[in-house]
């Protein structure tokens, strides 16, 4: 596959994210009912469906414009902390991409790092706080490591998805220190964090999209 991600591929990523979220909505909500307010699946389905409607509704121009539109749509439709954090992720990605209709490997890497750093700055969470950062931070670290090791973009994104899954599962024994689950204290241990679960879906959807591009 080419070492670039076109705006079409980015749109495919978002479509795939939306359909995976829909498929796994009940599981996300189940996770959230253990340590939250049992609406993460519903909220993410609503938000990603709005993104798909936005994509289907009209032209998006550059990668920057696409990512900004996705971010604002998620902020206004997901609701609560998840909406602000996913919105920040895409807004920061958009702010840190060249004004173009495609991204090369290092541009994608930079944009993803900027997105994750934006989420960290917004939510003041770090790895181990039992949040989406536990999936996202290892993912972008693995991506950079693999690219630095000379792996192709496709393989590097696959490594990122693996790291996100491991990071997601690492939240299970943790006690939440951020977000509403933190009010539960010790009782939050023993459950995967729903935000880390949806974040792992986001990275897996990117890996699947790029993997498909090669076929």
């Amino acid at each position, binding site marked *: 596959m080419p070492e670039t991600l076109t705006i079409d591929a980015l749109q495919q990523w978002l479509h795939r994210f939306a359909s995976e979220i829909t498929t796994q909505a009940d599981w996300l909500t189940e996770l959230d009912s253990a340590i939250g*307010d049992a*609406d993460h699946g519903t*909220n993410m389905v*609503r938000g990603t469906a709005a993104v798909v409607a936005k994509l289907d509704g009209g032209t998006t121009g550059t990668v920057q414009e696409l990512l900004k539109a996705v971010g*604002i749509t998620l*902020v*206004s*439709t*997901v*609701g*609560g*902390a998840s*909406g*602000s*954090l996913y*919105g*920040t992720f895409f*807004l920061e990605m958009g702010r840190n991409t060249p004004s173009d209709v495609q991204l090369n490997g290092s541009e994608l890497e930079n944009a993803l790092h900027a997105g994750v750093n934006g989420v960290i700055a*917004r*939510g003041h969470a770090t790895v181990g706080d039992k949040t989406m950062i536990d999936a996202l931070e290892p993912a972008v670290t693995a991506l950079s490591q693999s690219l630095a090791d000379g792996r192709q973009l496709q393989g590097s994104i696959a490594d990122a998805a693996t790291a996100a899954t491991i990071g997601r599962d690492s939240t299970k024994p943790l006690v939440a220190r951020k*977000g*509403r689950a933190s009010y539960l204290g010790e009782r939050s241990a023993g459950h995967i964090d729903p935000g880390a679960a949806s974040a792992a879906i986001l990275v897996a959807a990117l890996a699947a999209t790029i993997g498909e591009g090669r076929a």
Partner: protein
Amino acid sequence: MIGIVLVSHSEALANAAMELALQMVHGAQPPIRIAAGAAGGFGTDATAIASAIDDLATTEGVLVITDLGSAILSSSLALEIRSSTYQALISDGPFVEATTAAVVGATAGSSLADVAAEASNALNAKRTQTVTGPGASVPENTDSENPAASAEERLINPMGLHTRPAALLVQTAGEFSADIELTNTTAGRGPVSASSVIGLLSLAASKNDQLRIDANGPDASRAVNAVKRLVIQGFGELS
């Protein structure tokens, strides 16, 4: 006058807090917008908060007051995505108390920085009364030396110096250029600024407590007389 944006997970909660706070002021009211709920349920929405801030475009700055959890997170994103550029601050004060302090402060014409400080300190009044809190901390005020005018008067209000008379006192103090301070000499609390409703509440002044009024400035004696008259008349509560 500064503007106020109330950010809450619940529209009913925000409306009630606003109504409660507006009980404290008479006449002109500060511009207030509510950004509450998300996607038809409980939650906060950064785009709605950004619109609320932008909607207050003619004001001298905006104080954003938040309730639980994601309200601060959404508000900080809202400050980035709003289209207006005038100053806006997010308060760390408790929702109901900060809303009350901000409405009173804004009505009295205080600056954004002053109102933000009032809202941030809004727990102090409660702390002076609670028996389970981390300890009372009455704000220490300085510069009470050499008052140009002063007087002492006994508080006659059965409920003491509670929020409504305190708000009236702040409004009255705002009419003078002199710095006015009150001390509860009976309880040994103060002096506190008469322009701070939270400070006044922290005096925890009860009926029959002796209040000392100090003023420093060109219209000090008129200011002292005006405040003294309020105290003597029981802040209009006894008629």
